């Protein structure tokens, strides 16, 4: 049942979604897609998309046990996401076409690489 647990030996394969910052292994992204963003990122089964929309460079692991109650989740704007492991900072930029898609969908994309912090 502990699907979000990643053994230390497997942690090198971890990637973080650049949109929701969830941290999973590459294999899980490939097999299941991003649990939060699959609707518009369509990561499942598409390695290219995984490569461009998730990042191996991330810092600050957060485990969210209760996304509704947690202030950390709220602050990180993770409330409403599934519980799981997230990153505080995900380096890398979404490809422009994906960003455009997000905008067209009316989804406010929050960069997870720290560039949004100054804006607030």
């Amino acid at each position, binding site marked *: 049942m502990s699907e979000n647990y990643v053994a230390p030996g497997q942690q090198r394969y971890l990637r973080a979604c*650049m949109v929701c910052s969830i941290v999973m292994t590459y294999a899980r992204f490939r097999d299941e897609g991003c649990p939060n*963003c699959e*609707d518009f990122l369509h990561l499942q089964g598409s390695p290219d998309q995984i490569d461009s929309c998730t990042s191996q460079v991330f810092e*600050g692991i957060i*485990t969210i046990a209760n996304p509704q109650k947690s202030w950390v989740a709220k602050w990180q704007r993770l409330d409403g996401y599934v519980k799981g492991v997230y990153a*505080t900072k995900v380096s890398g930029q979404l490809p*422009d076409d994906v960003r455009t898609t997000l905008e067209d969908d009316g989804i*406010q994309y929050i960069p*997870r690489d720290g560039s949004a912090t100054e804006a607030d």
Partner: protein
Amino acid sequence: MASNSWQFAGADDESDDDNFNPAPADMSDEENNDNDEETTHNHRPAGKTVRQASSPGNRRKRRNKDRRAAFFDIEAEVDDEDEGEDEVGDGEEIEDFIDNAHPDDIADSGRLNDDRRHRELDRRREMEASLDAEKQAEILRERYGKRAPARGYGDMAIVPRRLLLPSVEDPSIWAVRCKEGKEREVIFSIMRRIEERMGTKNEVPITAAFERGGINSVMKGYIYVEAQRQNDILVALDGILNVYPRSNMHLVEIKDMPDLLRVIKTPNLEPGAWVRLKKPAKHVGDLAQVIDVTENGLEARVRFIPRLDYGVRDDPVFQADGKRKRPGVPGPRPPQRLFSEAEARKRHPRYLQGNPQTNSWNYNGDDFENGFQVKDIKIQQLEVKDVNPTLEEVTKFASGAEDGTENLDLKALAATLKDSAKSVAYVPGDIIEVYEGEQQGVIGKATNVQGDIVTLQVTEGDLAGRTIDVPNKGLRKRFRIGDHVKVIGGSRFRDEVGMVVKIVDDRVTLLTDQTNTEITVFSKDLREASDIGGQGSLGQYSLLDLVQLDATTVGCIVKVDRESVVVLDQNGDTKQVQPSQITNKLPKRKFAVAADRNGSEIRLDDVVREYGGQQRQGKIIHIHRSYIFLHTTTTNENAGVFVTRANSVTTVAAKGGRNTATAGPDLSAMNPALKRNPAASGKQMPAPRTFGPDRAINQTVVIRRGGYKGLLGIVKDTTDTHARVELHSRGKIITIPKADLSFKDKVTGKTIDINQRGGSRGGFGGGGRGGGEFGSRTPMASGGSDRTPAWGSSRSTARTPAWNRDAGGSRTPAWNDGSRTVNPYDGSRTPYGGATAYGGIGSRTPAWHSGSRTPAPDSFGHGSKTPAWSAGSDSWGSKTPGYGASAPTPGASGDTWGYTPGASGGGNSSSAYDAPTPGGGLSAPTPGAALNAPTPGAYSAPTPAAVSAPTPGAWQGGWGSGGDAVSAPTPGALGAPTPGGAPGYADDD
């Protein structure tokens, strides 16, 4: 059926999204899906209008509305607006929504009077009931978990961060200590525990946990756990490895909570920037230049200078023992060199593909362009911060241009360097300009530098005279054209000195003093220069170093240029060499010794003069085999360095006043007397030994010096110099120099000399042990007043005259006569030390001279020479009469002890000791003796001549001639003080 219902939920979600984001390109698909798979729902549009009115918050209605929208445009539009408002309301209470939605849903449906609807509902309930709880949970999660994100985005757009600041209602965050480097593992362990216990009685009561570890993070060693109560954390973390909730846990204050999650953007890599490689082990730390960065910024194409050995070291992969070399342990890595097609072709033609036109190659799977290796590297394998490229490294990249022009992108370099402000060191006195920030344009003199803050005394402009503090980030040193500056670091021009000729921003061009070339450096690498010209050094080689050029050639560096050095080799030739041509640098051998033409030892730093030729004089800087490199200040040629053979110089002055004249060859080794009589020689030189245990042991002593001064103790053990003393008062044993001890009588407490009682033990009387260390307190000084000569002679042949003299009250006149010289040592030297007088070392003391000097030596101007010395021969100069007389110690005992016929042949002790008198020394030797008996054998008197020369004088003559033969001094110059002696030497020569 289960799948149907599930599908239904999923479709529901999809349509929610569509609804929410009105650009439903795929909506029709969804609709079709619904229609195809869920025929049971087809009736729904009919009843939906009612439901919509009754529960505006319901989600399902939207799907229906959409469906209608396909047919009724106007109504759909109106509905949409409603939805928008609803949406805002919903967003604020997701929880409520999730909690209520489902029952609502069902209740709504229940209210309908549609039979089919009822049946459908019943079936669904039945089905749901039949599922086990876990499955149901799964379904619910699937349904709402997926729905949440879409709603979440709506929230995010609306709520700014400042409204998210934590309040007292939010859970608290505790910092919990954990093992450094294990933060991530701990977080995952917590995740696992949360999931394992989910749905059980003891669910993990925390809401979140996070880490901000990392090698350079200040937050490493902690994880942060968010929970309502502290006890929850203890429960949650109990038994998890590497985290220590029980040691100390800090509550993070509410106002600090946002800081815990602060994220600072890593600056983007720009093409042209400099980075250092972290990953391929062979290239760790190498500088690389970014050529290109991938769109997502996670990978960069960089170029760097390859380290290739072109297969030269391939072979030892399989070592002799058949074991494969461990790949993780690379040997010494090859040096950085640009890729060479020719070399690659030599060994691995098969692995090489490429295009000579574009000069791009693929070799062994690596790409090379223009000699540089080009590679895509992930940015986590690049060191982006604090790169600090040196100009030297950077120019390697720049020199890729074929015409050799500097195509250096100083801008990119400057940008890289600017980030690393710590490399800039401002020193009080620097003239500094502020080029960035509020104080831009201010110019002043640094008066104080503390950390990153520089205090400036403003010298120009409106603020003149004011003192301001500025962070050193926006500062640069300011120079004016014409300033004389020195390069202080960070570039390959280090230590160059020159004049500023051009300044562009923080790039300063200067004309060097040494080579008159223009160089450009950053102003941060400059300082106002006080000196002229650089004391050159090139890599590890600096001026005046001795270097090995090839197996047989060494040279001294006499000039250091930018890229090469000029070397004066042992043959006196100068040549210009590259550092790469230098095999290695020969370390300065401090204790190298050579012999000058007189056989005197010469060492480094001695001043010597060439005997022939140009009579150059200089200080020895290197001794290599038989060559010595000298440095003189009288000429500038070759930086004042010249080379000559050691045996063609004479000593002018030895360093530290070492007596080169007398401290020449090892006397005892050449002393025929000692050779003849090894027994005597063996005992001659070493300090008189004592036998048996040290007498100091078990003596009561008082410590005279140091921290233990005044304490009484008993000597437990001794070495030559130290004693271990058990203190009465402290009951412990300390080690203390014997010199610091004063021996006390156990009973009376009076200061005693332990050796006094040892008077009967002549061996101890040697005093070399105690006295040698104790300076003035020679044990023997006070001892042995009752000693008789007979006693002395019977005791030890090693006894020196000095010793005797000190020891004995029964000195014979003859004794006094000869060894009076020892007098000066009486106070300050050991008896044995006095004995060195005849070794020649101490022979220069005035006392010695006063005691035995004869008029003759003065006439040579050799103040230090004892008569016998000069009379004997210069080469044996150290041989004083005292020596001659006493060398065979038995002889030294002289007739007083009636011992050695050889030395005291005349039976006249005074002649033995008075040998230095002109009469004795010079007139006694017959020419025949001198000439015919130059060998030690002569001394052993096998020939009549020798036999007939039993007087010390004769003996000395023999010696003297022997010495001549060996070291060939010119007796003419030195000797021949008396008519008697002169002919002999003249002949000899």
